[in-house]
Every structure is written in C-alpha cells, then in structure tokens.
C-alpha cells in the first residue's frame, strides 16, 4: 500500500470498518453514520477535491440489500479512493454530499432514480434520466429487463 493510502488508513482509524487495496485503489468499508465525517476529512485533510462518482449495487438476497459505492480522486497524488456503504432496503437513505461537492447533485439524483435510495439534504431529487411518474427503480435486480413503460405510447 502506498504511503498516501497508509496515511489515510492511519488517520481515519476508527471511522471505517475495513480497508483494503483493490487493483491499486484504496477501498474503505464504512457505516452510513460516518460518511459525512470521512468525506469531510478526505476533502480537507487529504485533498480529495474531485467527487468522481456514486453508484449502487443491488444484492437482493443480502442484508443490507444495497451497497452504495463512492469514488473520489485526490488531484495532488492522482490517487483514487473508493468508499462502500451498506444500505438497508426499508431505510434506503444516506446523507447528501452536495454540501461538500457540487458534482454530487446530479449523480445522487441518478442513484435515486435507478435504485430508490434517498439522499437526505439533497433538495432536488427529481427524476433525471427517467421521468415523473415512472414506477419502480430500473437498476434494481427485481425490475425485469422486459418491463416497458414508455412515456409516449408506441406507434402501432
């Protein structure tokens, strides 16, 4: 593990459950309650200025059902960090990161669209890739591939 990654795992001790390196990227497994603190520390103390991505993975048979995955980039070191959080289906909520990163605004909307995970504090969770009135969350595994609900009826 690089010294930069070691300084993060050392400095954030106690805020994450598990840390490991996967294909050259530091992965931190953490509890939703620690998300805001960890992200603020990563941004302020370790210079992770770029919020790259947020997405989720659906494991219908597991508990918690969803795994939300964040990617960050520290431009000074050009190193990436992945955060993973388990989210329960009945309380599919996470705090928003729009306070720290403007870029989170759109990407959280997409995860909300696709998986139905709410980001509390994100004032704008309107559909983004889908449309108002769309039923269900298409990237959940129980949404059938063949299921169609076009906004404009198909032409005969």
């Amino acid at each position, binding site marked *: 593990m690089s010294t930069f990654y070691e300084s993060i795992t050392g400095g954030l001790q106690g805020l994450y459950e598990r840390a490991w390196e996967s*294909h050259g990227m530091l992965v931190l497994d953490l509890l939703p309650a620690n998300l805001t603190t960890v992200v603020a520390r990563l941004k302020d103390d370790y210079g992770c200025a770029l919020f790259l991505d947020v997405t989720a993975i659906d494991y219908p048979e597991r508990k918690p059902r969803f795994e939300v995955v964040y990617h960050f980039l520290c431009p000074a070191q*050009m190193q990436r960090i992945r955060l993973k959080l388990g989210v329960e289906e009945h309380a599919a909520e996470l705090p928003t990161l729009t306070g720290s990163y403007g870029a989170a605004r759109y990407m959280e909307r997409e995860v909300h669209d696709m998986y139905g995970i709410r980001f509390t504090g994100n004032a704008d969770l*309107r559909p983004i890739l*889908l449309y108002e009135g769309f039923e269900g969350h*298409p990237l959940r595994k129980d949404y059938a591939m063949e299921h169609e609900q076009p*906004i404009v009826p198909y032409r005969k």
Partner: protein
Amino acid sequence: MQYRPPVSSPLQHTAHPDHVVVNIGPSHPATHGTIQIVAEIDGETVVHADVHCGYLHRGFEKEAEHHTYHNIIPYTDRLNYCSAMNNNFAYAEAVEKALGIELTPRCIWLRTLLAEYNRIADHCTCIAASVMEMGGMTAFLYLMTVRDYIFEHMNHLSGARLTYSYVRIGGLARDLPDGWLVRLEEILTFTEGYLERIHGMLDRNRIFIGRTRDVAAMTPEHALNWGYTGPILRSTGLAMDLRKDNPYLAYPELDFEVPVGIKGDNYDRYYVRMREIDESIAMVRQCIERLPGGPINVDDPRVVLPEKELVYNQIESLIHHFKLVMDGVQVPAGEVYTAHEAPNGELGFYLVSDGSGRPYKLHVRAPSFVHMGGMHTLLEGHQVSDIVPTFGSMNMVGGECDR
C-alpha cells in the same frame, strides 16, 4: 394528446413575477444534443438555469447486466459516438484488468494510436458544432471535412463510420488493412493544413472573441467542485491529464504536452481543444513510427476465439468456440474501476463481476453527465445568447450523458 414534460421545472413556480421563463430544447436548432434548458431570464440575462438531461436514456447499465462481455462492446460504441474507440478501449481495459490480462505490444501501441486519432475527430466535431452555432459556417465545413476524412478512414479499418466495435477483450478485431498507415499520414498532413485555416479564421476574429472571451469563465476550484475533467478542467489552468498522471496503454513512452488555458472561459476551451489536436497528431505520428510487429491478440484461451480452421476440424476447439460465444468470457469475481482520458474527460468504467460470463454491475462514469450537472453555474449571470456557445464548448454528447 396533451403534452406533459418528463420533468417539471420548479422555475415555473419560483420565478420572479417580472422575469420570463424560457424553454430551450430538448430539440432546438441552436443546441446539438437532446438537452433541455429551462431558464429564468431578466431582460437578456439568465438568472437561474435548470438543465434537464435523460432524453436519450437507453438503459445501458441494465442492458449490460444481461449481455456477455463481448456483446457489450457495441453498446459502448454508442456512449460517446464521436469517439467510439476511446469508449471501447476504456471498457476493454476494465475487463482485462479484472481478468489480469497483459496486452501484446502491438495491441498497446495500436490502441494508443487509434485513441488519439479518434480524439482528433471528437475535438473537430465539438469545435465545428459550437462554431456553427455562432454562425461560423466555413470553419464548420472545414472541420467537418477533416472529421469525415477520419471517419471514412476508420470505416476502412472497422467497417463502420462511427460505431466501430473494433476492440476485443485481450486485443483487437483485426490487424490494420494494407496501406492504412500511408493514408493515415496523408490525412494527418491534410488535417494540419485545415487547422491552420481554422486558427486563421477564429483565433483573432472579433465576433468569435466577443462571443467566447470571458463568457462562462471559471476557476480551477470551481471546476473541481463541479466534477469537471478533461479539456474543460485544463482550460482553467490545471494541467490534469490521466495520460500523464495515471498513464495507461503506451502513454508513458510518448512525448507530449498538456495544454492548459488561462481563465476557463469558452475561448480557452476552444483553444485547449485546438492545441490538443496538435498534440494528438504528434502522438499518432510517434505511434506510427514505433508501432511494433507481432500478434494483436493475447495468447489466452480464456478470451480469444480459436482459429476458424481448428474450429471446423477439432471437437475441442469447436467446444471452446461454442463456450466462449454462448457463455462468454468468465471474469473472476471482484470489482474494478478503470479511468481513461476520453476526449471529454475522465471516462470511468466500474465493473463488478460475480464470476459469471455477464457483469453483475457495470457503471459508466460519463464525463458529459457530470459536466451537465454543473453547467447551470456557467449560464447564470450571462446573456441568453451565451447559452449556445457555452453549451457548445461543453461538448455534451447525448449518448454518453444519458446512457
């Protein structure tokens, strides 16, 4: 049938009574992409802007979960369809990383060459479209000429003008056709000639400067906060380029510069792209010179189809071929994120495999989508007429943005 917008904008209700709410798009002659901008305007000044995308959403990620790894390649073409090679290679690298495959030297150099060659076409398209929307018809036609020469040349290589599907896991579809590199040099020379004309027409053109200089300027901090990468981030003066900072393919061995801008306005974005085309041309030439011989596909039965001759004559090879086509490449369980410097910025593929022949999850970190998330900050405070050049300089590609 009554028209109902897919997503209603709160500006309809929150706008100041003296202001006007205008709607631009999703299909508008002044925007080259299916995007909708709802703007609250005070006179000619944009006070608030609400950018909607999703009109080209095709469920790429859902489709990917139901296809074998090779079958996903044509879908990746349709992300940024102006530079399908870059998408192809970024996706293939994610799968190869998960499989632990080392590419052959010829494949590495050929992929680098094609990625840079396709970048030229993408940047030409971006500049052409945004200049055309400002009324610069000649520059548009010149750049489209260059772009079409490149597309025709790519067609010779792959059989398609835009959607190449030229990559294979562990290699490429086929080697270069005879005479392809000779024609490549001709096109590069031709492109250089045309770029000079573009510089002559635009760089010091008063109308062009008036519409682009100091319009939608931003600081590096602002750009990072809103997730901007690629030429847009570099136009603010930050020399961040994955080809230099996280080198992949043959980039560590290439000699090239990272052009940056001064203040991150529309003019800088135009100029950074023009300079990147120069660098790409130089990189393609270095690749031609140093292109090694040898096979283009790895010698790995897990991913590469056996020779047709053997498939027809040996039962083992026939079964092998059948298994690879029907069950797909078996990628070991795990997760991987790869990022390539696509013409628009950081194109990331996040792949989660459960050990089967189909991805459990494939997520695309599409630069256009992220860029659209911050575009309202660049529109607000400027004129209605500035929406068009600003949007043009973002190079939003619907296929990539909406996936």
